[in-house]
């Protein structure tokens, strides 16, 4: 769950936009397998939006966990079937998707445990210069259990690196292409999803 309302809306907008893109690609383009992958991404984006909001963060927790674990297996299977010899963009992409789905399953499952030590509070007003009181804002204090914090930290780092890498590729492809195309947009969307998940993982620490 995201405590800060502005960030909550930003993530909602990011995952809604990426979900709409995946839904479009699912309906209009690709093979049966890629359509399944896109459908799974649409569900993941919906799950992420729900997770950002306090009222929905534990909605259908177990079914979601099972679904995203199965989705992780789907992408892992695609990676294996592609074969170890083809270490290209497709393999990296499948590995990245498998990681995102596994991360999603773990985050949904662990959310109640992660939130158990958190306390929402509004600090005192401040801002005076002579008095040295500082700014204010709604904060979420406390910390997640150590094992949750460690896994969330590792996931955040992986998502950050993967998302930045995808963005770099999107930039390079975007420059090489004369006009925006689906592949470049797909890379940018993957990057946004991954970076959004990094933020969600950080919020669990």
């Amino acid at each position, binding site marked *: 769950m995201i405590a800060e309302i502005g960030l909550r809306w930003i993530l909602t907008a990011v995952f809604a936009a990426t979900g709409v893109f995946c839904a479009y690609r699912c309906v209009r383009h690709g093979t049966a397998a890629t359509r399944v992958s896109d459908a799974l991404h649409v569900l993941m984006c919906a799950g992420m939006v729900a997770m950002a909001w306090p009222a929905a963060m534990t909605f259908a927790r177990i079914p979601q966990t099972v679904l995203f674990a199965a989705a992780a297996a789907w992408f892992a299977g695609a990676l294996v079937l592609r074969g170890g010899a083809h270490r290209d963009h497709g393999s990296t992409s499948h590995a990245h998707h498998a990681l995102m789905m596994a991360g999603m399953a773990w985050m949904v499952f662990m959310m109640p445990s992660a939130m158990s030590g958190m306390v929402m509070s509004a*600090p005192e007003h401040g801002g005076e210069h*002579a008095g040295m*009181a500082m*700014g204010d804002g709604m904060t979420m204090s406390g910390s997640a259990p150590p094992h949750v914090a460690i896994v969330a930290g590792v996931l955040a780092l992986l998502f950050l690196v993967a998302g930045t890498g995808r963005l770099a590729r999107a930039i390079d492809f975007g420059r090489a292409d004369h006009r925006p195309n689906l592949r470049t947009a797909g890379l940018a969307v993957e990057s946004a999803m991954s970076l959004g998940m990094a933020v969600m993982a950080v919020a669990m620490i």
Partner: protein
Amino acid sequence: MSISEREESVTERMPGWAAVRPLLLRLHFYAGVFVGPFLIIAALTGIAYVYTPQLEQAIYDHELHVPAAAGSLSLDRQAELARAVVPDGTVTGMRPAPTATDTTQVIFDRPGLEPSYHHTVFVDPHTGDIRGSLETYGSGQALPVRGWIDTLHRSLHLGDFGRLYSELAASWLWVVVLAGLALWLGKRRRERKARDLLLPAGGPAGRGRLRSWHGAAGLWAAAGLLFLSATGLTWSLHAGSTISALRSGLDWTTPSVSATAPPAGGADVGVQAVRDATARAGLSDPVEIRLSAKAGKAYVVQQIQRGWPTKQDSMAVDPATGRVTDTLRFADYPLAAKLSRWGIDAHMGLLFGLANQLALIVLAAVLICLVLWGYRMWWLRRPTRGGARFGRPPSRGAWRRVPGRVLAPVLVAAAAIAYFLPVLGASLLAFLVLDVVLGLRGREVAR
């Protein structure tokens, strides 16, 4: 062509520094031009603020000082005399006279006061004479002149809207400084002459000499300017909230004594007994005594010396028994809380007295020079022929030459920084939109 081959062809068009330099130059130029006036205002009002401790002593000499004499009235009696002057006020605290030539400050909350403002009565501790009463500001008890200059520096007396100016200045200062540092160090990297880096060049007047002064002075002042930017942001309206939340999340907040008193067991022992108890426990002057606002709350006596060595120890005292119930030593503060205290006091010129004040004045003067030299360089870039009234800015499209592997982390970092420093983020976004619009317009005109 494979995907990886295509990628190579794009990303290897320009090596790292050669690609990044134009982007940094553009950032340094536009950010500097945009934020320059705000930095000059902040520097000038900051210089004015630095003088305020001496100014207060001179202007409010009558309120602050008394002739030395033997003996003094009890703090309770002094509070009683002050109460008679402010019948509609509630005493919230007292600052006992730390020396025989100082007055006691009795601090009131009063209807109609702005937030963070108090009404303070100054009492001669020897005779009980009321030396005056003033509106004071903040927990630092700034007297009216300091409070006025403080508000000018912070918000130009324009309320929360005015605070955006100082937040803009503080938010962009570190960006301009870091970009400028990278440009200056990167430019001289090949020549490897320390003198060119550290000292301004001589030679004929012109843009080259100005740049040399701008770069060398900027290099010397960089650490100080980064410090002012970081500490200044802690007071800002929006970034300040983020910093508070971050400090809270990382347990970097300033600790405080527990002001919870045991269940009431008798009459209030009074302020003098409280001060005596804390003095016996080792709490030396200067202190502020915060009165217990309601039943079940203890008196809190806090040292208020901001100059080195910092004295910020505090004690809680049970109002019924006069017993010290909790003690918090500054030495036991977490390191982050100590650094925060010292950083704030250094920014205000209080930590190292006159040396601190002089360093801040020099730093602010250098900042003003840097901005003015920057504008002057821009002016000298203007075409000498034709109708152009302004100098040519660094060329557009610098980002196109930066490889994705460099640009992507920069974009991700920029997004994160823009979130944590929202005024910087909003102004950057506004600039990008304007830049795109101007670019499109320029392209249409060219057609």
